């Protein structure tokens, strides 16, 4: 029972990180219908930013956290403007390939600058673990779950209540109509990328705390998993990303504990396939039918 609870909490921990990254995927997809394959690599950018700022420049941690977020946002917005915006009216697959290109580019630049040798993540957290009876929950886990939960609530409120959030929803429904209503589509899309990448920045901090080793391909696997989480929950839907992330995290940690650590990927993909077969637009997705 204790093992089970521990695995459950581990799953929530990983799942919360997946959910944070998945939010970025889902928001970008929701608004420009692009699978932003470079999103996972923003995580890597954030991690290396922390490495540079702390181990080389010795800046204080709090300032570093802010700068990491800024750098991630800057990268995200810049990538959108340079690589995706010119392709907005092209076949969607072209922007998909461009996103893959951007992802490769980021990884290879990191490889060139930082070499493939992993670097230790420079921020750590040493608080006592939370004790509930015999169950002990690590402080990083507690922090991750709380931060993620808080961010998701804030994001949901932002999108559903603020003016900018309304603009986002409008743009995601129909570019042209939104534009005719006086919404600045370009700025709204930039804002979406900015928020998504800020979440990835926070994700990189939490990921770094949990797995303190930074390499150029750091973002690839969590990126892929988060993306799958987003699809699982229904891509384009914010609560779906959270749900998907948590399911992925739980499935992964429970399979590792009870079945086999090698098969955890297979189980995760298996869940994805089963869900899509029965609910082709994801768990929370609405089925859309082409009107004849």
């Amino acid at each position, binding site marked *: 029972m204790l093992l089970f609870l521990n695995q459950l909490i581990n799953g929530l921990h990983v799942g919360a990180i997946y959910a944070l990254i998945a939010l970025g995927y889902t928001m970008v997809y929701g608004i420009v219908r692009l699978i932003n394959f470079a999103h996972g690599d923003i995580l890597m950018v954030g991690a290396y930013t922390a490495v540079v700022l702390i181990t080389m420049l010795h800046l204080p941690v709090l300032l570093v956290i802010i700068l990491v977020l800024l750098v991630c946002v800057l990268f995200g917005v810049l990538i959108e403007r340079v*690589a995706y915006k010119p*392709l907005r009216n092209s076949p969607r697959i072209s922007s998909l*390939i*461009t996103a893959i290109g951007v992802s490769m580019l980021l990884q*290879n630049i990191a*490889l060139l600058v930082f070499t493939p040798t992993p670097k230790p993540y420079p921020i750590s957290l040493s608080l006592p673990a939370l004790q509930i009876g015999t169950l002990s929950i690590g402080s990083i886990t507690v922090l991750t779950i709380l931060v993620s939960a808080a961010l998701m609530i804030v994001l949901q409120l932002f999108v559903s209540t603020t003016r900018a959030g309304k603009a986002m929803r409008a743009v995601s429904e129909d570019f042209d109509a939104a534009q005719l209503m006086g919404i600045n589509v370009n700025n709204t899309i930039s804002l979406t990328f900015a928020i998504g990448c800020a979440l990835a920045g926070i994700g990189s901090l939490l990921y770094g705390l949990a797995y303190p080793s930074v390499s150029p391909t750091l973002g690839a696997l969590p990126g892929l998993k988060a993306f799958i989480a987003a699809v699982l929950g229904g891509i384009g839907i914010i609560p779906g990303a959270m749900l998907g992330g948590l399911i992925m995290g739980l499935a992964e940690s429970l399979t590792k504990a009870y079945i086999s650590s090698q098969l955890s990927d297979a189980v995760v993909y298996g869940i*994805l396939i089963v869900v899509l077969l029965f609910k082709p637009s994801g768990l929370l997705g609405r089925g859309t039918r082409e009107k004849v």
Partner: protein
Amino acid sequence: MNKKVKSYTLNIAALVLIYATLSLLISTGAINSYISGILITIGIAIIMAVSLNLTTGLLGQLALGHAGFMSIGAYTAALITKSMSDTSFALSLPIGLLAGGLMAALFGFIIGMPALRLKGDYLAIITLGFGEIIRVVIENLSFTGGPGGLSRITRMSRAFSSDTKVSGAIQFSIVFWVMVVIITSIYTLGRSRHGRAIISIRENEVAAEATGIPTTYYKLFAFTVAAFFAGIAGGLYAHQIGMLSAKTFGFNKSIEYLVMVVLGGMGSITGSIISTSVLVALPEFLRGFSEWRLVIYSTLLILMMLFRPSGLMGTKEFSLVRVWEDTGRFIKKTLGIKKRQAKMPYTPHYDVWEDSVVLETRNLGIRFGGLVAAEGINLHLNINEIVGLIGPNGAGKTTVFNMLTGVYAPTDGEVVLLGKTINGMSTHDITKNGIARTFQNIRLFKSMTVLENIKVAFHTRMQYSPVSGIVRASSYQTEEMGIDIRARELLRVFDMEDVANAQADSLPYGKQRKLEICRALACNPKVLLLDEPAAGMNPIETAELMDTIKIIRTQFSVAILLIEHDMKLVMGICERIYVLNYGRVIAQGTPAQIGRNPEVIAAYLGSADNNDNGGAQHAEG
């Protein structure tokens, strides 16, 4: 015929030339084993890219698990040649390759069956999922060598001769000719009736189904064939490298092949060939820049997409014969030689039906959840009759069409076509049985030519198999020649012969509508359903359309049911009219009767002072 001979000769000459040069260079050692290794890698990658192009380019379905099929082929072939180690490699290799292809095709079929119900990004993700599962499972099976993989697989570059140059040349020959056969097969398949069916699904799935194409079947077919070729590529790969590790075939590998296809131009086989050669060779050329090469590679990829979003070749093919002919045409033009246009007489091929009632609905109705969209609909159409279906927007007119054509399954009542109940049938079967339709918002196969649009509709009346199409057997030749003539005849009736080779979406609006009607007629229907044929037309075009509809009735002996808001057209050509409101038939009769019916006037025409030839031409906006 002449053109074909020319094309074959040119292409074969070019192939033999390339082959002879390269194999000579390899066997003399002028190309070292490193370079010839790259050539082999290119050849295998081309098979992968061209086969993926079948699913992604021609069928238009994004698939991200192609490397998974490659791994199945690779492992199957390797396990077979390993277990047949006491047989000659010259025998075990082809068996292994073929078995690898078949095994991959089997998996393609099994995976495709559920997966192809999804569309777009969801299909991409589910294929990604299947691809990864294949990888994980191979990594965890014992007979595939587990995570360590398979090693000591016979290598083609060593197996055939103790002289590595000779063996290398044989390896090159095998990969080269297998590649040529596969490319040619996909190319000819793409130009057969089966290829047209596949492409029509990419262009417009709803219209393809309504034109009689069994879309589910063809999706699965293309997916399975692509998997088969990927399996063969896998088998070649296994015997090139000599060892296998499932990790090689992950998501990144699938993405690599997808990049090749998109960069070359989706749907362009020659584009795939060019881009694959460049993309495989480029990193090797950039080896001098060692660390920078992948940075340069990815930058080029981004720039390429930014400046040529639809790829190198778009959907076009590079063709030697075209270059040849263009040169020839240029010479003829300058010399003033003109080609004589052959005229063929029009002969109708359409059966005449004796029964007087062609189509009948009995108490037809449909509910979406709690919403009753249509109920108690009783219509009938007599042979050679033009009947109007009118009603305010949202009255359920298109819903009736959708029920008649099987797009929606009616929840009540039945549809009887020539004495046969057809509700519950799939759309393409209904089309085959004799109901063809057009759509409110035109649905053409936009990037196909006018002629090809028509030819798709002849699909159901052609017989030849995919294999006959690939090898261009005599059944292919005669049937294709036959429908070419018939399709042109049909276009002539509609006065559209001059635009036969124009791309469908380049036509002006009125002609696009006409083409859609023409395509529907090519399905050889007994009943033609026209959904707002005059929508968006100016008065002159509408008048022309009225003439066209009359021509159709006399020439093709079909019953026509048409939805239209243009009262002038409805009152002018319909013999009978049904009026629909809130999903029910509220009136029926001759145009004169309908025009006087107070209920109709109240529900539909609005005010009492509209008379029977329609004071309001567009009664509803």
